[in-house]
C-alpha cells in the first residue's frame, strides 16, 4: 500500500494544505510572500495552458508572453478610470476612454482578444507541419513589443501603463487558476483531448481515424492563448504596472522552461513546475547579494539564481526528458475527483492512512536497526 493511493492523504496534500496557504495569503495581501503565492497561481494558468499546445498536441509555441501582453493591456484599458486614460492613452477612441467594465468581464475580453490574435497567426501557420509555429510565435512577441513601445498614443509607449487598480486578489487568481485547470482537465479527458494526443503521437494514424488536424491545432492554440490572455490580465493588475518589456522573449522563455521542467504532457506538471520556478529563484536570491554560510562570507554572485535555474533545466533534459511529472496527473486527478473529498467523511479512510503511516514507520525503524547491527 502506498501513501499516494490513500484518498485522505491526497486530500491533505493537494487540497487542504494548499487551501490553508491560500487562505492565509488571501488575508495577508500586500505581504511579500502573499505576492509570491499569487505569482505562483498565475504561473499555473500560463504553464498549464501552454502544456495544452506544447505537451498534449505536439506543437511548440513560444508566444505566451505576447498573449499575456494582449490580455494585460486589454484588461487595463477596460478597467482604468477615464481621467487616467485621458492622460496616458489619449489616442484611444472616445467610447473606450469612458468605458469601464467589471474586472472579470475585462479579463475575459482580454482572453478573447488574445485568442483572436492566435487565430490570425495560427491559421496560416498551423496548416503546415513542423516547427513553423515556434518561429511565428517568437515573431509575434517582437511585433507585440514593437506595437506597445511605439504606439505612444494608445499604450503610453515604453513608459508603460501605471496605477492599475489592485483587483487581482489571491481569491481571484486562484479562482481563475482552478477554473482553468478544471477546463483543461476535462478537455484532455474528452474525445477532443484524445484526438489531440492522437495527433501528437502519430499524425498519419490520426488522419485515418478522421481527425481534422487543422481545426484541432488551431482550436487548441486559441484556447491556450485565451487562458494566457486571462493570466496576463491578472498579472497586470497584480503588479499594477505593465509595459512592453515585461512581455518579451525572456518572459516567454521562462514559461516554456517551467513547462519543460514540470512536464509538458501533464497538467500536474504545470503545478509542480510553477511551484519550483516561482519559489526557487526567490530562495536563491540571497546568493546574489552575498550571504554567510558557516561563518564564511560568500562574495556577491550576481546572476547566480539564473545560472542555477539554467543548470536545472539542463539536468532535467538529460535525466528526465518528460519533466518531473512525466505523464502523471495525480494532482489534477485528486483535485477534481469526488472521491478525494468524500474521503474526509469516511472513518475507514482515516484508519487506512494510519495503517500506512504506521507501516512506513515500522519499515523505516527496522531499516535503521539493521544498519546499526
Amino acid at each position, binding site marked *: 500500500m502506498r501513501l499516494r493511493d490513500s484518498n485522505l492523504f491526497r486530500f491533505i496534500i493537494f487540497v487542504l494544505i494548499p487551501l490553508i496557504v491560500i487562505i492565509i495569503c488571501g488575508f495577508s495581501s500586500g505581504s511579500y510572500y502573499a505576492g509570491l503565492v499569487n505569482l505562483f497561481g498565475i504561473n499555473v494558468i500560463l504553464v498549464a495552458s501552454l502544456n495544452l499546445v506544447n505537451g498534449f498536441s505536439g506543437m511548440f509555441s513560444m508566444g505566451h508572453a505576447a498573449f499575456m501582453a494582449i490580455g494585460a493591456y486589454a484588461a487595463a484599458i477596460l478597467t482604468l478610470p477615464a481621467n487616467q486614460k485621458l492622460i496616458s492613452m489619449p489616442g484611444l477612441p472616445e467610447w473606450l476612454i469612458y468605458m469601464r467594465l467589471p474586472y472579470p468581464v475585462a479579463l475575459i475580453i482580454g482572453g478573447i482578444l488574445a485568442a483572436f490574435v492566435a487565430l490570425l497567426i495560427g491559421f496560416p501557420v498551423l496548416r503546415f507541419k513542423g516547427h513553423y509555429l515556434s518561429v511565428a510565435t517568437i515573431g509575434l512577441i517582437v511585433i507585440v513589443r514593437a506595437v506597445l513601445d511605439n504606439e505612444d498614443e494608445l499604450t503610453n509607449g515604453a513608459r508603460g501603463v501605471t496605477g492599475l487598480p489592485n483587483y487581482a486578489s489571491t481569491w481571484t487568481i486562484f479562482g481563475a487558476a482552478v477554473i482553468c485547470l478544471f477546463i483543461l482537465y476535462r478537455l484532455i479527458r474528452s474525445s477532443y483531448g*484524445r484526438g489531440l494526443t*492522437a495527433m501528437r*503521437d*502519430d499524425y*498519419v494514424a490520426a488522419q*485515418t*481515424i478522421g481527425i481534422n488536424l487543422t481545426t484541432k491545432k488551431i482550436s487548441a492554440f486559441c484556447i491556450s492563448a485565451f487562458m494566457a490572455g486571462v493570466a496576463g490580465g491578472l498579472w497586470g493588475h497584480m503588479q499594477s504596472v505593465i509595459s512592453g518589456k515585461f512581455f518579451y522573449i525572456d518572459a516567454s522563455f521562462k514559461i516554456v522552461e517551467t513547462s519543460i521542467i514540470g512536464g509538458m504532457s501533464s497538467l500536474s506538471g504545470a503545478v509542480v513546475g510553477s511551484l519550483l520556478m516561482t519559489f526557487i529563484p526567490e530562495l536563491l536570491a540571497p546568493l546574489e547579494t552575498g550571504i554567510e554560510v558557516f561563518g564564511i562570507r560568500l562574495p556577491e554572485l550576481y546572476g547566480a539564481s539564473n545560472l542555477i535555474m539554467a543548470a536545472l533545466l539542463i539536468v532535467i533534459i538529460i535525466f528526465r526528458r518528460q519533466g518531473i511529472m512525466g*505523464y502523471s496527473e495525480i494532482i489534477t486527478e485528486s483535485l477534481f475527483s469526488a472521491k478525494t473529498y468524500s474521503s474526509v467523511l469516511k472513518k475507514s479512510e482515516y484508519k487506512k492512512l494510519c495503517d500506512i503511516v504506521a507501516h512506513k514507520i515500522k519499515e523505516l525503524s527496522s531499516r535503521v536497526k539493521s544498519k546499526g547491527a
Partner: protein
Amino acid sequence: MLEINKLSVKYDNIRVLHYISMQIRKGEMVALIGANGAGKTTVLRTISGLLKAESGEILFEGKDITKMSSHNIVASGIIHVPEGRQIFTKMTIEENLKLGAYLQRDRSVIKRNFEKVFSLFPILKQRLHQQAGTLSGGEQQMLAIGRALLGNPKLLLLDEPSMGLSPIMTQQVFSVLESLKKEGITMLLVEQNAYEALEISDRAYILETGNITLEGRSSGLIQDPNVKKAYLGGD
C-alpha cells in the same frame, strides 16, 4: 462502390501513378499487388485523402471525393489501416479503440462495433487497459484493424497487414480478413505477400511502376504464368 478514373499522383516532380483506373464493387475484396515502390501505398493514401491527386477522379458511391479532405473521407465511410501498424503506442488499447470511433456519435453503433471487434479479437478484450505499445506485432495489427472497424467502414483500405509478421501471425491476420469478408465488408488489400492475397481476394490488380499491367479474377491470376513468375516464385 469505388471508382478510380485515370488517376495520377506526383511526389514533387516525379509522377508515381500514371493514369490508373480501378473499380471496387460492393462486398468485394480486391487485392492490389506489386513490388516495392510500385505505388501501392500511394494509391491507398490518395484514396483516403492523405495525398492529393494530380489529375483524375475518385468516385465513392457516385460522389467525387478526389478533393475532399481526409476527415471528410473518413466520415463518408472509407477507413484506411495504414502501413506498419500505426497505433497509438502510449495509449491503452481501449483508448485506441475509442479513437477509432472518433467520428461516431451514435452510442448504440459504437457499442455494437465494440462487441464485433471483441468477438473477432478476443485478445484485445483481455488486455483492454494495457498500453498498446506492449502488444506483439501481430496483436498490434489486430488492434489497428479493430480500430478501423470501430469507424464503421463501408470500405476498408488495408496497407500491408502482414508486413513484418511471423508466418503464424500472418495466417491469423488473413483468417481475420476472411471473416470480415464473410460479413460483407468491402476491402481493398495491398500486399506484397501475393500468394496469400490472391488466395483470399475476389479480384486483383497488378501494379508495376505506377501502371496497372494486369487485372482479373484472383483465381485466374494465380494460374497466370507471368504472375507466377514475377510474384509467386513459381517457374
